[in-house]
């Protein structure tokens, strides 16, 4: 091999092959991706987050929460994510359709958060946990985020002051109030809920119907009788 241009041409082809396979082909698939509409409830999934939750996503991003927390639940048979209660179905690309930035993460020093809004729907729990994780999880290794909270003088009236257990409350009696960033971050965490069944990750065949009806399960779908794209058990 002594000709630079020939090597260059070879490199162009090899790069083109990687590009075509891993970027262009998925692009073709995702560019046509549309939200699913539930035939029965007419609910659309995925949906845009509300303004406060989108602001919270920015706080999540700015503090690098994705360095420790993933937002991707694996399917049953691939690890025990679902047994740990992190989700009822595996995560699919469509879950991130409307995300400004898909913060899937790659390391689990903290638990998966793909469905944290469904798992822990209590805003107060999250605020206390952000202020000092040990209040809620005594052996937690997560960093506290005091800068997301405002410390006000003892005796200050604040309707949104945190009710901190005495062992963790400031010794000088200061009142701890969440900043707008903390409120937004919690709104984002509560909005994390990827449990709606989608075509790529259908409900399990032995799962209870998701809506309250007397009709047999088979009539809940407009697919031919007996047809199912569910994961075989």
């Amino acid at each position: 091999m002594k000709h630079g241009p020939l090597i260059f041409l070879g490199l162009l082809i090899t790069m083109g092959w990687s590009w075509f396979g891993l970027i262009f082909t998925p692009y073709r698939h995702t560019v046509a991706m549309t939200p699913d509409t539930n035939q029965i409830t007419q609910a659309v999934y995925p949906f845009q987050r509300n303004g406060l939750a989108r602001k919270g996503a920015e706080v999540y991003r700015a503090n690098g929460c994705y360095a420790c927390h993933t937002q991707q639940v694996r399917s049953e048979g691939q690890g025990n994510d679902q047994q740990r209660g992190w989700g009822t179905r595996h995560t699919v690309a469509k879950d991130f359709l409307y995300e400004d930035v898909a913060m899937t993460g790659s390391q689990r020093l903290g638990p998966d958060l793909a469905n944290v809004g469904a798992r822990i729907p209590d805003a107060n729990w999250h605020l206390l946990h952000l202020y000092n994780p040990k209040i809620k999880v005594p052996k937690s290794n997560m960093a506290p985020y005091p800068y997301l909270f405002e410390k006000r003088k003892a005796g200050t009236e604040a309707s949104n002051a945190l009710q901190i257990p005495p062992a963790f409350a400031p010794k000088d009696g200061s009142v701890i109030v969440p900043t707008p960033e903390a409120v937004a971050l919690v709104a984002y965490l509560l909005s994390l809920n990827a449990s709606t069944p989608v075509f790529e990750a259908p409900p399990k065949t032995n799962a209870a119907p998701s809506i309250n009806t007397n009709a047999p399960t088979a009539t809940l779908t407009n697919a031919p009788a007996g047809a199912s794209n569910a994961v075989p058990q």
Partner: protein
Amino acid sequence: MTVYATPKPQPVSEILVNPPSAEQSDLSVRLPVLLFFTGAIGWFVLGNLVYLLSLIKLHAPAMMAGVPALTYGRLVPAQSAMLLYGFASQAAMGLILWMICRLGRTLLFGKTTLLLVGALWNLTVLIGVVAILGGNLTGLDRFDLPRSAASFILLAFFLYGICALITFHRRTERDLYPSMWWILAAIFFFVWVFAAGYILLQAEPVSGALQPIIATWFSNNIVALWLVPVGAAVVYYFLPKLSGKPLAGYSAAVFSFWAWVLFSSLTGFQYQAAVPRWLPALSAVAAVLSTVPALGMGLAWHQTYAPTKNSSFAGILRMVRFASLIFVIGVVLAALSGVPQTSRNVPQFAELLAYTLWPQGLAQGTFYGFFTLAAVAAMIGIVPTLFNSAPSSLSTGKAFPTMMIAGTLLLILPLLLGGIVQGNALANSSLPFVEATRKTLPFVGISMIGVLILIICGLMMLRDLYELTRNSCMECCGDWVGGGSR
């Protein structure tokens, strides 16, 4: 005095008639390469300091918790950007220029432009790191530079690439040694991979559904097709040269080159869940196929190796040989651990090790174990030649190479072992999640010692560079500098 006079730019026709000597080549690249190397070593120390701080924060999460800039989530992308762009990419850029001029027997083209590129590059990394610590994070793993910094990196590399390719074109040695193929590939791939990541994730961001795919493709290929090629070029250059033997297996080198760029560019998706299923499957197959070129290169390097007769370079040879060994082991481990369940008899490594410290250990294995060891070995060999000085004490003594190798192993091995322990703990559904994380802490603690040793190595390199620069300044204009004695 005449030794330090930089050769005047020659017209191409004249270079072809009178190829420059190795000394003339070295002199022509001296300033830009020194700028890149100094920046690289500086960022190596800073980046590892931030890395150390991030590991300390895993043990003491409440430490300095009130300082937003020092929160773990910001330290991780900051150290990653410092090490990838500040250290590794600058070291690679310097090594490429030096090898093109040496192997191509030519003089550097565009020295002033390259000096500007070096200055712009360092300034951009600095701005990027400050922005990251200030909270301007991308949200994407290992695509860490904020948009403004990324655009300047692309611009700077574009200018760099033009100068490097013109120098390459003006070579008088028409035959291309294997190192030159890898260098050509590295320059071309950096532009493509970085531009693709920048355009699709920052300039014109694609839908969130596609972002994890682009980000994974980027983070895999910036290592597999930018750092690995430069590392391979270094091994192909230094191993035969210092062993005093010709490279074994030329045709194996050709095969390995093409097979590596073909297969390794498809890897990296093994541990992803939020992507179409065929991507991890394809990646797992590609990772297994990548072991063929890696083993081919490893075998050729092993056959080429011979203990050096010149003890001044024994340390460099040791580090280069170790780097090549870690590279092969890393590729094989990545292939083995990425294979999803293929039959009931095969353990589910991919499921067990996903999202643990293991993938991080593998990535650090390639970054520190292969690229950094090889690049540092080459740098401590090259820097004294640029000053026309005797080999540095770093390469003649045993301490520095031993510390580099020990630091690297102490950093990587605990991450891999910790990943296995963490994976097993996570697989036990009855064990609370926090226990799995707590089990990793002793391993992270040992890694901290490794990082600390690497910081000391970086400081030793900075000191060596300072001494050489000082002596050179003294020799040239001692009275003016103020020393006068030399």
